[in-house]
């Protein structure tokens, strides 16, 4: 095994395994790093490889430790861990071309497992770097004595030639909707809203910069205070946590969508839950989706891949005006023997007013006027949480206000429920869309009023209207707890971030989100009628042949001899000049013979002519050609005048 090959292979494994370093068990990462360093040292110092027995023991111990750590040897995470460890160990018992080739194939495999964790543009760039290293190493497996420069050049040429062909395949290769077989449980990671809410759950989420979804409005853009993205609706309260509860029957939702239809498309990041986000209230649903009786939108399956859907919502509506008695009863449930002061307050409002609507207004005024504040770091609450919040601490985040408000309403006999979701979003002028982040998570309330149905009430707006008008960084006074970018970053930085996000949005839409539907739409738009796999295959073959043909033409032109030797060209020019002067060179005549003949015919030129011929012969047939001699040859030719 020659040294450069071993170094190339170490580089390959390093590049393909390094993205895994953070999510492998720490001991595996460090063991692999140590093994790689050991291998590099052995190669550098020329020491022999460790014995097979030692490697066998390390392998066995490693696999056993992984099996114990994961409690299994099956599954994706375990598979990746084993692959990385075994590839590293294989490097220590590299004995022939076949081993090296196997290692190359293995590193291709590890490279693809990187995409389980990230498919961002940065990952794509790293993939290209790793691929270049792999091809270069591969080349060296076959051609052990090639020098570094041609090795890199040929590898780069191969890779660059493959790129246009790959693009064509990417677009035209008939896509199949996966999965083909059941996926293991650990296939997806989830982040985002859950279907429960307790104090602190939303304020924790609002610290995350992660993108929840992106929205492109295809019609008019609604006002900011209309951008309520509905998520889980919570009915059941146990004094601390709100949950969805369960409806006794599945009622069909009923609403009169009256005005302001908004058409938009949402690109939802995977969150591993079944629900989708929509503006209130959706009037046309994406294919396969359904609307629950509390107007929550559900997809068929959990969203575990980025998903794009188109829909229309009506922002002005009457929802479930004829709500059933059971549902209204559900919306009045309260935990027993808790928060006596709140119940007392609600009872006093009920005694003073007779209309539900005015009680709602009273409650909002109460929040507005009783010195409540909006903060990310509220003090802890006791067992009578709502009492503590309303009468003592008076500091809270949106979930505190929504929770307390709904509690008050229910205590006053008004059906009410908590709705969680997202509010607002950041406009990206570069890509003309809105980014909704986890930090936009929000909770608000809905009350059911006779004749109007369910009406949205956002108590947070009564305390911190900026939260609704702008975003949480404007609303929270002391925003040190917010992530850096959610505070007020410098202009250039937020611009850069918007540009990057626009780029990554395009990437998500066109590269990562390229599925059978997108393929169909794109091909139809490009003029393919009745898209079918046969047509795709035909066009694919045609396109590939054309590109490969062009490459072949470019590649094969290097094979033929061309007399582009500048030394010879200059000599031939001189011969032509002399031929015009009546001294043509005979076809059989060598340079020196010709020069002698010219010298004899033109004694004045003899010296120069013989000098040039001598230089020509030594440059063209001599050992080495140095720049100095070439220059002297050219000068001599220039000085030659008939």
């Amino acid at each position: 095994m020659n040294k450069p090959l071993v170094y190339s292979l170490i580089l390959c494994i390093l590049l393909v395994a390094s993205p895994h370093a953070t999510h492998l068990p720490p001991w595996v990462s460090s063991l692999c790093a140590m093994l790689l360093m050991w291998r590099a040292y052995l190669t550098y110092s020329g020491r022999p490889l460790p014995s097979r027995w030692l490697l066998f023991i390390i392998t066995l111990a490693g696999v056993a430790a992984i099996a114990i750590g994961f409690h299994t040897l099956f599954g994706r995470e375990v598979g990746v861990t084993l692959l990385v460890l075994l590839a590293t160990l294989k490097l220590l018992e590299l004995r022939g071309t076949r081993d090296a080739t196997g290692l190359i194939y293995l590193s291709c495999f590890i490279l693809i497992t990187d995409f389980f964790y990230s498919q961002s543009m940065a990952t794509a760039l790293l993939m290209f770097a790793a691929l270049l290293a792999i091809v270069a190493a591969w080349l060296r497996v076959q051609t052990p004595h090639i020098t570094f420069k041609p090795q890199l050049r040929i590898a780069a040429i191969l890779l660059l030639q493959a790129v246009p062909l790959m693009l064509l395949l990417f677009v035209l290769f008939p896509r199949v909707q996966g999965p083909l077989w059941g996926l293991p449980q650990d296939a997806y990671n989830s982040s985002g809203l859950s279907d429960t809410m307790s104090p602190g759950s939303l304020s924790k989420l609002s610290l995350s910069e992660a993108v929840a979804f992106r929205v492109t409005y295809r019609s008019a853009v609604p006002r900011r205070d209309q951008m309520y993205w509905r998520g889980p609706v919570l009915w059941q309260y146990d004094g601390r946590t709100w949950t969805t509860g369960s409806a006794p029957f599945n009622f069909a939702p009923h609403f009169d969508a009256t005005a302001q239809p908004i058409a938009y498309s949402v690109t939802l990041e995977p969150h591993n839950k079944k629900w989708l986000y929509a503006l209130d209230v959706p009037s046309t649903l994406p294919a396969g989706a359904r609307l629950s009786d509390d107007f929550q939108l559900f997809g068929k399956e959990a969203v575990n891949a980025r998903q794009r859907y188109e829909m229309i919502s009506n922002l002005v509506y009457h929802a479930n005006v004829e709500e059933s008695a059971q549902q209204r009863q559900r919306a009045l449930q309260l935990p027993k023997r808790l928060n006596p002061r709140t119940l007392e307050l609600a009872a006093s409002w009920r005694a003073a007013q007779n209309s539900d609507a005015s009680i709602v207004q009273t409650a909002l005024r109460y929040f507005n006027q009783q010195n409540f504040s909006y903060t990310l770091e509220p003090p802890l609450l006791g067992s009578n949480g709502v009492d503590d919040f309303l009468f003592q601490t008076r500091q809270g985040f949106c979930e505190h206000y929504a929770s307390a408000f709904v509690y008050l309403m229910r205590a006053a006999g008004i059906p009410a429920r908590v709705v969680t979701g997202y509010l607002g979003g950041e406009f990206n002028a570069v890509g003309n869309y809105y980014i909704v982040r986890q930090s936009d998570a929000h909770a608000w309330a809905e009350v059911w009023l006779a004749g109007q149905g369910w009406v949205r009430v956002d108590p947070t707006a009564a305390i911190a209207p900026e939260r609704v008008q702008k975003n949480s960084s404007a609303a929270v006074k002391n925003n040190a707890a917010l992530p850096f970018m959610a505070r007020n970053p410098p202009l250039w930085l937020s611009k850069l971030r918007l540009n990057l996000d626009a780029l990554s949005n395009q990437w998500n839409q066109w590269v990562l989100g390229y599925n059978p539907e997108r393929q169909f739409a794109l091909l139809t738009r490009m003029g393919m009628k009745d898209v079918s796999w046969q047509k795709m295959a035909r066009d694919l073959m045609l396109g590939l042949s054309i590109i490969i043909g062009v490459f072949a033409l470019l590649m094969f032109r290097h094979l033929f001899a061309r007399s582009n030797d500048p030394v010879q060209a200059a000599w031939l020019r001189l011969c032509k000049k002399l031929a015009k002067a009546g001294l043509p060179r005979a076809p059989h005549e060598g340079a020196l013979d010709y020069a002698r003949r010219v010298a004899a015919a033109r004694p004045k030129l003899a010296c120069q002519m013989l000098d040039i011929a001598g230089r020509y012969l030594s440059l063209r047939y001599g050992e080495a050609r140095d720049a100095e001699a070439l220059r002297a040859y050219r000068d001599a030719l220039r000085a030659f005048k008939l």
Partner: protein
Amino acid sequence: MLKSIKQKFRNWAFRRTVETGTVVLNQRRIYILPTRSGFGFALVLVLMLLGDINYDLSLGYVLTFLLAMLAMMSMLHAFRNLAHLQIHAGHIEPVFAGEAARFVFHFDNPGTLARYQIHLRDDAGHRTVCDLPARRSTAMQLDIPATRRGWMDSGRLSLYTEFPLGLFHAWSYLHFDVRALVYPQPAAPLPLPAQSAQNGTGKILAAGDEDFSGLRSYSPGDPLPRIAWKALAREQGLQVKQFSAPQGHELWLDWSHTPHPGLEQKLQVLTRWVLDADAQGLIYGLRLPDSELAPQNNPAHRTECLRRLALFGMPPPSRKRGEGAEPP
């Protein structure tokens, strides 16, 4: 059984023709097929594609397609690595049986593209490999053990490459009209034949050193021991002693005097005698049942003797295309 069928198929599919002059590898002469490692890689790609579909890995598709197209382009590169090479056979030195015949081929690479890992192999598996720099003619030497005396054909050779990635095997067949002359293997050392009835023992060449016959003036190249130092001391200038050689006594290496009964063994013994006699500077002649070479001592004589021995009893060479480049 399978091997012989394979061989027959090959002979049928790739016609055996013997070539003279310069062969240019054009596309009709180059065949290409995936290697075992290439099929292995295809399997890896299929697995990767299944993974992409199942886990919906868009970047996985990118990687899989890139690798697949890389493999596809490597086919073109493998083909190009052989294409348009110009090959002609070189001079082949005669060898003794038991040694390796060195078949030399000159590869002319006229283009600006260096060729890597060009292998040359015969059907028995003897091989050699080298790189061919751009715009250069490179000699490639294939050693094939010579087992039998006489003319030795290189047989059909495969010229192949698996550059750049080892996924494709591009090859061409070469069968040049070149032969190596194989002398019989010299027998184990044994004394030269004794003086025969008609002739005396082998005598040393004219510059014998038995009888002093006089002095002559020095000319460059004369050996130092022959310089007459005494004459120099007598200030007679630089003189060289001359000796007369015994005339009329030559060594005959005779077929009928060889101790062994077998034909090949007789030839081996005669080969050994020729070599020994030549090395000792004797004047020797060779007498075979069908021919005779008069006693001499010079390199051409030695070569001719060995050649007679090599070809003794062989039918005259029958070539498909007239007289080829027969080694001198």
